[in-house]
């Protein structure tokens, strides 16, 4: 561990842990404030239960259906992580290919920019037809949605080293892969994380969409099920869980980025 090698330096995990703590506390605080306002509104205007169930009812739904919510959340999160991992690998490799071949980049980039203007969720029905109704569909949706953002970010990152650094590698007769690993990859890491961060927030929502339409057993279907059985406390509990999951997913990318940056410093 680098902490042992340089005793005066902090462990690379402290910065990440602090960010995680801060963001979780912030979220909890916000939820508390909203819950109080919510309860107040329900009391004040005497809102019927089917329009807006009071926080205690939602909390009871959490307790009563904890297993179902947890299982659904796990399914969605695992699908999202798998989809993003696949997309990260393919996108980074393709970005490297674009760096290596100017003509490939010229041939494909305009098409990619064009495709990127299309919101990926709009083609969800097609993806469901192709990938079937299981987890494969959620994974495929997430991979497709995040692919372009990560690819463009990675490409920008690989292009970001200063010409001086690249010239130096050239002067020393470094091979293509040496230049990639020693110069381009370190320069690209912050860019790739920016791409991941932008993609992360939408990725989990996208996975939920896929489940919503396909019926795979994740958070998206749980919301729909709760809605169709008029179990509104459960629906709100699931909505809360999904918001939290999306928020935590975003936080996760922040934390990992911090850890990687602290590590490499």
């Amino acid at each position: 561990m680098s902490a042992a090698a340089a005793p005066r330096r902090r462990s690379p995990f402290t910065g990440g842990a602090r960010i995680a703590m801060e963001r979780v506390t912030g979220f909890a605080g916000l939820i508390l404030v909203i819950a109080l306002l919510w309860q107040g509104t329900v009391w004040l205007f005497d809102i019927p239960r089917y329009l807006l169930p009071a926080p205690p009812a939602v909390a009871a739904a959490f307790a009563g259906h904890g297993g179902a919510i947890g299982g659904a959340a796990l399914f969605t999160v695992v699908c999202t992580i798998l989809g993003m991992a696949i997309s990260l690998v393919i996108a980074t490799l393709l970005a490297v290919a674009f760096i290596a071949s100017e003509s490939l980049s010229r041939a494909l980039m305009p098409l990619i920019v064009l495709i990127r203007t299309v919101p990926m969720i709009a083609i969800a029905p097609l993806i469901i037809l192709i990938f079937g109704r299981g987890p494969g569909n959620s994974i495929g949706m997430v991979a497709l949605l995040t692919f372009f953002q990560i690819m463009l970010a990675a490409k920008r990152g690989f292009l970001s080293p200063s010409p001086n650094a690249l010239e130096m590698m050239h002067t020393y007769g470094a091979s293509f892969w040496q230049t990639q690993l020693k110069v381009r990859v370190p320069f690209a890491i912050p860019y790739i994380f920016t791409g991941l961060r932008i993609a992360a927030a939408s990725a989990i929502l996208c996975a939920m969409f896929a489940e919503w339409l396909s019926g795979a057993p994740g958070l998206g279907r749980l919301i729909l099920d709760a809605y169709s059985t008029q179990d509104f406390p459960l629906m709100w509990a699931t909505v809360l869980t999904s918001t939290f999951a999306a928020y935590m997913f975003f936080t996760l990318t922040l934390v990992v980025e911090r850890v990687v940056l602290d590590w490499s410093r």
Partner: protein
Amino acid sequence: MIDIRRALLPASVFAGVIALVEAAVRLDLTPATIAAPSVVAAALIRQWPLLWYHLEPTLLIAVTGFVMALAISLAAAALAYVFKPIEASLTMVGTVLDSIPMIAIAPVLVIWMGLSLPMRITIATIICLFPIFVAVLQGLKSAPGTAEELFTNLAATPLQRFRLLAVPYALPYLFVGLKIAAPLAILGALIAEWTGAERGLGVYMLNAMFSLRVIELWAGVLVACAVSAGGFMIVSLFEKLAVVDNGHRGAGA
């Protein structure tokens, strides 16, 4: 303007991919869920009246939602510009609203507003709101410090400062937000229709999906893609006009 020679290479790659898919389908190499491009094109032409019947409400929802989101964002951002202290809380509310999954908002809106046109427009509005708001807010703050100082030295009134300094500098940012929001408006309309409607492009797509009509689904998806790319291009066109009108002032941002 599009450079013909630069467009030639990607266009030929595109044509090559289409030809490959066509050949693969003809040779029975693909799963049944991939439709031959020629068949899809034929279906697009044959089914156009039906597609247009379904596209109409989708376009109406998307355009109305987009315009409403623009109006609300401009008003909120102007408010935040005038009353600086509320800026942080407005952004906070926006972030929270934006991080609530649309799939979660949709059923709630259905409960509150019923399966109605206003409900669908609300969904399209919500989905467009945040990107535009953030862009405008950032743009209104983007004037360089030297220009701010000049306005102070010349004793500009707050209105002059807003009209002659903040707004011109905000325009390029506004268009960045609008370009993100235009395809999102179409998406919002589709999502709204997926929650339940009797007419709309989203309904058409779902019906085709559930009854495994592969060709019709491809046609519907193509139309959705074309419409959202079209929205993007229309905004880009307006951007060109506005930036020319804006002259050198916009170029500084």
